[in-house]
C-alpha cells in the first residue's frame, strides 16, 4: 500500500497532439493518499477511464510521471505495479469454476495453497457466492459474473490500490447498494486505496471520502462530498453534484452586489473587478420563493413533488431555475419571486469560481 502521485500527467491517444482537444487528459497534478476511498466522477468521455488505465499501467501516459510512494512507475508494466482493477463489463475465465476464478490472481503470484484457500473462502463469503464455488463460471448471469470480477479484484491483500471502472453498471439496483456497502466495509477493514470511477453521483457520494470530479480531460475539483456541495469550484461541479444541480444566472458583479436582469442581488462578500463571462451560482436548496418585490422576478413552470421535498421549476429572465422547497414549508400559490441566500451565492468567471479572499491577496 502506498501513496500514488501524478506529476504533470497528460495523455493523448493521437501520436502528435497539437490542439487542446487532442488531449484526452490535460496536464494534471494529483496525490492519492494511501488508504483513501476516492470516487472519480464525471460524464462519459471526460477521461476517467483513461486516468484509471494510466494508474494501473494498461496505458503509458504521453507526458508526466506516476509515483508509487517515492518510486517512479511510469514505465513499469501492470504486472509489476501490483494493482487490482475491476472493469465495467464482467471478465471471467469461462472454463474455470468460481473458486478457480477467485484463486487465479493469487495462484499467479505463487501464494501457498492454504492461504489461497482461506482467502478465496473469505472473498466468496463477501460476494455471497460461497455456495456455488464449484460451479463453472460459464453460464452464470451477468451480475454473478461481475461479482466474480469484483471478487478477483479484492482477493489480493497486498495490492497498492484497487481501481473500479464503473463496476456496478450491469448489477441490479438493490444488489448495487449491497455491493457498495460491502466495498465500503472492505475499505474500512483493510484500508486499501480505492479509486472508484462512476458517472453516478449517488454512487460516488456514498462510497467515497474524497470525490474527484473530472470534466473535459481535467480534474476540476477534488474534495469531500460536503465541499463539493458547498463550494463547487467549477460550474460543472455545481451542475453535476446535487439534484437538481446548481442554478446559474448571468450577472454583472460590482463590489458586493450582483446585477441580474436589471435586479440588484446583494452578495455576502465584496469582489474586485472581474473579466470574462460572469455568472452567479446558487444551489436550489438555498433559494426560497417570495410574493413581494424582494428578490428576482420568477415565473413558475412546474412543481414536482419528490417526497421529502418539492422541486419548483421555473425561469428567471429566460434562464431555467430550480428551487427546492421542503415539505414542511408552505408553497405560496402566487409566488412570483425567488430570493437567494447571499451566504450561498458563488461567483463564476468563465466557469471557474472566484474566491474573494484569494482575489484580495492577489491584488
Amino acid at each position: 500500500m502506498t501513496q500514488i502521485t501524478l506529476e504533470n500527467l497528460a495523455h493523448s491517444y493521437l501520436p502528435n497532439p497539437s490542439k487542446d482537444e487532442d488531449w484526452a487528459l490535460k496536464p494534471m497534478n494529483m496525490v492519492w493518499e494511501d488508504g483513501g476511498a476516492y470516487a472519480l466522477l464525471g460524464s462519459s468521455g471526460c477521461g476517467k477511464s483513461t486516468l484509471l488505465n494510466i494508474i494501473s499501467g494498461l496505458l503509458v501516459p504521453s507526458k508526466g510521471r506516476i509515483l508509487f510512494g517515492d518510486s517512479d512507475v511510469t514505465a513499469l508494466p501492470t504486472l509489476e505495479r501490483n494493482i487490482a482493477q475491476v472493469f465495467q463489463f464482467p471478465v471471467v475465465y469461462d472454463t474455470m469454476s468460481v473458486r478457480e476464478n477467485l484463486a487465479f490472481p493469487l495462484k499467479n503470484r505463487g501464494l501457498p495453497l492454504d492461504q489461497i484457500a482461506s482467502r478465496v473462502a473469505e472473498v466468496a463469503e463477501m460476494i455471497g457466492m460461497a455456495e456455488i464455488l464449484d460451479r463453472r463460471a460459464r453460464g452464470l448471469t451477468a451480475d454473478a459474473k461481475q461479482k466474480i470480477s469484483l471478487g478477483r479484484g479484492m482477493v489480493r491483500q497486498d495490492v497498492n490500490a484497487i481501481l473500479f471502472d464503473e463496476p456496478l453498471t450491469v448489477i441490479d439496483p438493490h444488489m448495487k447498494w449491497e455491493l457498495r456497502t460491502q466495498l465500503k466495509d472492505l475499505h474500512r477493514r483493510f484500508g486499501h486505496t480505492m479509486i472508484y470511477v462512476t458517472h453516478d453521483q449517488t454512487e460516488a457520494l456514498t462510497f467515497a471520502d474524497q470525490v474527484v470530479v473530472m470534466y473535459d480531460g481535467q480534474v476540476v475539483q477534488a474534495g469531500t462530498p460536503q465541499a463539493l456541495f458547498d463550494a463547487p469550484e467549477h460550474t460543472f461541479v455545481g451542475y453535476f453534484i446535487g439534484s437538481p444541480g446548481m442554478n446559474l444566472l448571468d450577472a454583472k458583479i460590482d463590489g458586493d452586489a450582483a446585477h441580474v436582469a436589471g435586479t440588484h442581488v446583494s452578495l455576502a462578500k465584496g469582489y474586485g473587478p472581474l473579466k470574462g463571462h460572469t455568472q452567479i451560482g446558487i444551489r436550489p436548496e438555498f433559494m426560497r420563493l417570495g410574493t413581494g418585490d424582494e428578490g428576482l422576478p420568477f415565473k413558475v413552470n412546474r412543481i414536482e413533488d419528490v417526497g421529502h421535498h418539492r422541486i419548483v421549476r421555473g425561469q428567471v429572465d429566460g434562464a431555467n431555475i430550480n428551487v427546492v422547497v421542503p415539505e414542511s414549508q408552505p408553497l405560496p400559490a402566487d409566488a412570483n419571486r425567488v430570493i437567494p441566500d447571499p451566504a450561498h451565492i458563488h461567483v463564476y468567471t468563465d466557469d471557474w469560481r472566484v474566491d474573494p479572499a484569494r482575489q484580495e491577496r492577489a491584488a
Partner: protein
Amino acid sequence: MDKPVNNRAWFLVMPVLALVAFSALLPLMTVVNYSLQDTFGGNQFFWAGLEWFEDVVHSDRIRAALGRQVLFSASILAIEIPLGIFIALNMPKKGVWASFCLVVMALPLLIPWNVVGTIWQVFGRVDIGLLGYTLTKLGISYNYVNDPIAAWITIIVMDVWHWTSLVALLCYAGLQSIPDAYYQAAKIDQASRWKVFRYIELPKMQGVLLIAVLLRFMDSFMIYTEPFVLTGGGPGNATTFLSIDLVKMAVGQFDLGPAAAFSLIYFLVILVISFVFYTLMTKEGEAL
C-alpha cells in the same frame, strides 16, 4: 410461450426436400442399388446381397488404402491445427499489415485444387523444379516420382501449404472477437502468456476450432485431386488414398458393385469419425 402447431407448415419445406431428394438421396439410392447387385452390362442385374460389402471389408488393398488415408489425415491435422493457431496468434490485430496478412493468407485458398497439384508437381521436379532442383544440387536425395517418403513429404507439405490458411483465418476470427478487457484483466491478474492462451484465447477459439478440425478432417479424408495430379497414387501404391483407389475401381476397372459398396462404407466411415470428433470436442469444450 405457446407455439402454434400447424402441420401444413410441412408443405413449406417440400421444395427443399424435393431438391435434396434429387441432388443427394436419389443418387445415393442408385449407389445402394449397385452395391447389392451384379451386372455384366446390358442393363441386366443379378442379386448379390452383401457379397460386395464382404469383399470390400476383407480386401487387403482397400485396408492398406484406409491405413494410408488415416495416416495422412492424422499427419495434416497434427500439423495444420497447431500451426494455424500459432499463425493466428501472431498475425497483427489491426492496421494495414492486418489487411495485408489476410490477403496473403487467403491466396492459397483461392487456387483451384488441380492447379495446386500442378504447381507442386512442377516445383518438386528434379530437372526443372525450383525445390527439386535445389535439393538435388544441395546433395539431398529427393525424388517424389520414385521415393515413397519424398512423395509423402511433398503431399503433406502441399496440403499444409494449401489449407493451413483456412485454420489460421478461422482462429483469427475467433481471436478478434475477444474484447480488450479480457487481456487487461489478465494483465491485472498477472497471468502469464501461456495462461492467457489457455484460459482466454483457447476457450474463445473452441467453436471455430471445432469447425476447422471437422472441415480439415473431412476434406483430407476425401482428398483426391492434388495427390492424383502430383503422384497419381504412386510410386507404386504409396500415395493411393481411398478416393484414388475408389476411382480406379469404379472407372478404371469398371467394378461397379464393389465400388458402390466401397463408396457406402467410405461415406459411413467419414460420417462416424466426424460424429466422434464433434461429440468429443463439444464434451471436451465443456470440460476445458
